[in-house]
């Protein structure tokens, strides 16, 4: 069963509110499921989410196919992405 965006949001909420019951790896697996279930036209598209903290610029335009990798490798982006998905201030 493919992961929906709504389920991804629920996973983000769970990760933020009950981090002991849900791991980052579980979350990233859900992202992978979600991306794999996207229609091709969207999977080849982008998610834009620009992060800049002080003078350290972190600018992101992530191709959906790359999103799981970016989430795995960049903890700053991951934290802000998960909080935004959970509907919390980043």
């Amino acid at each position, binding site marked *: 069963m493919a992961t*929906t965006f709504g389920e991804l949001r629920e996973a983000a909420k769970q990760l933020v509110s009950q981090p002991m019951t849900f791991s980052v790896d579980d979350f990233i697996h859900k992202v992978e499921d979600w991306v794999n279930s996207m229609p091709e036209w*969207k999977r080849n598209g*982008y*998610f*834009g*989410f620009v992060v800049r903290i002080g003078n350290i*610029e972190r600018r992101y335009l992530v*191709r959906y196919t790359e999103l799981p990798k970016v989430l795995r490798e960049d903890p700053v982006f991951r934290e802000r992405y998960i909080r*935004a998905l959970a509907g919390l201030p980043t």
Partner: protein
Amino acid sequence: MVKLVIVAPYYEEVTQLWNPFLKGWVKSELEKRGAQVILLWADDANKEKLFEAVKDPDVHGVLGAAHGWERGIVGQYNQVLIQVGDQIGPEWKKICLNMVSCLVAQELIPWLVEQGVPSAVGEVTEYAFTSDGSPRDGNDPEEDQLLKYYLRAEYTFWFRMAEGYTAGQAYKQMLEEYEIQAREAEKVDEETAYWLRYDASNRKFFGDPNFVLPVPGVKTQIQLNITTIRDPRKRKDNITVAGKVVALDGSVPKGSVEIWVNDLGTVVNLDDQGGFTYTFTINWLKNEETLYHISVNYPGWSNNVRYLPTYIDTEVSVKPVTLPTKLTIEDIETKRDGPLVYFNIKGKLVDKDGVPVPGQKINVYVGNGELYETDAETNENGEFNVSIEKSYPVLQTKATVVARFSGDDVYQSSEDIETANFPPNWDVIKTLLAAVAMVATVIAIILASL
């Protein structure tokens, strides 16, 4: 002549996706509305050019899309465009600023307003968006099947400003458009709808909501009078939106208004006094307090005279209305067959005005120590008819009959109590009497024989 500055750096993936639409579609739409655009494209998107451009006395707005952080915005190749602590000269005191930039509403935008920028809008958090990544020349939002929703919503602000709306009105219409676009996007992509709502909820207005670009024409205002009537019987609200568009020069504006109550909208032509009225009928399922968002948009009118547009919105709350009821037991027929008593009970439920209340469950109890319950339902005339059978002691000839309506979200509860009369159990009495007579006869015979 109103001039607007578009800041559009073009040097990496994000600006290359978004900013062609500033150079093409947005610029063209602003020009259609009579504004002159100063485009700071690519290498021109720098601090020197921006600060020079705003010195032009006809420049009254700065828009664009550029990377931001809490305290500033960067232009081409990440050179700082404007940041907290810059020298903000008097030429900025005629500028409205609204750029798509992350985080700037945290410090930069409120600081600019403190420095005298009359009105500004900015994002508190990161601005998130989705894009299908297809090649674009930027002349039509349709070129990107996902980004188009953001573009349409976002630039509502500047299109309305160029038409002559106040900054506060343009801001509200932009937020409304974000919601409209989110609903459209929902049909295609749930994620895009989420980020549209996320972006809108993090967009904040600072400064004077009455700031307006000096667009030539007669300023107008809307006077609004809203009446609401809840009809609990038909489970609907009648909301009458009436009012008048007033020109500030005393003349009578022409044209029409768009009236919206939540998602219901209509267009009403102004009468010869500039007035309008329309009644919306809105059905509801549950009788609870309901909040309606009402907006009236006068898009302006132009012939020999140009009447500028205006907009007003408000919320009204309609409180629940419940109706007292009267339940009457109208007739009780009884018939006894041995120990069993058959009751046929008829009654009627009406509201405070005597109007029948159909389709309601009536509980009928026939008392005698323990209660017997049955259900009946009122017909279209508010009438109910229920049959009950119950056994009673031989000599009992009365029973209490209670009919009770528990009420619902519209109708209040009510009940009626009557006494039912029925004969004793003559079969048993006769048998007993016969037995007694027989015993008496036997006793008499015995006594006579002694």
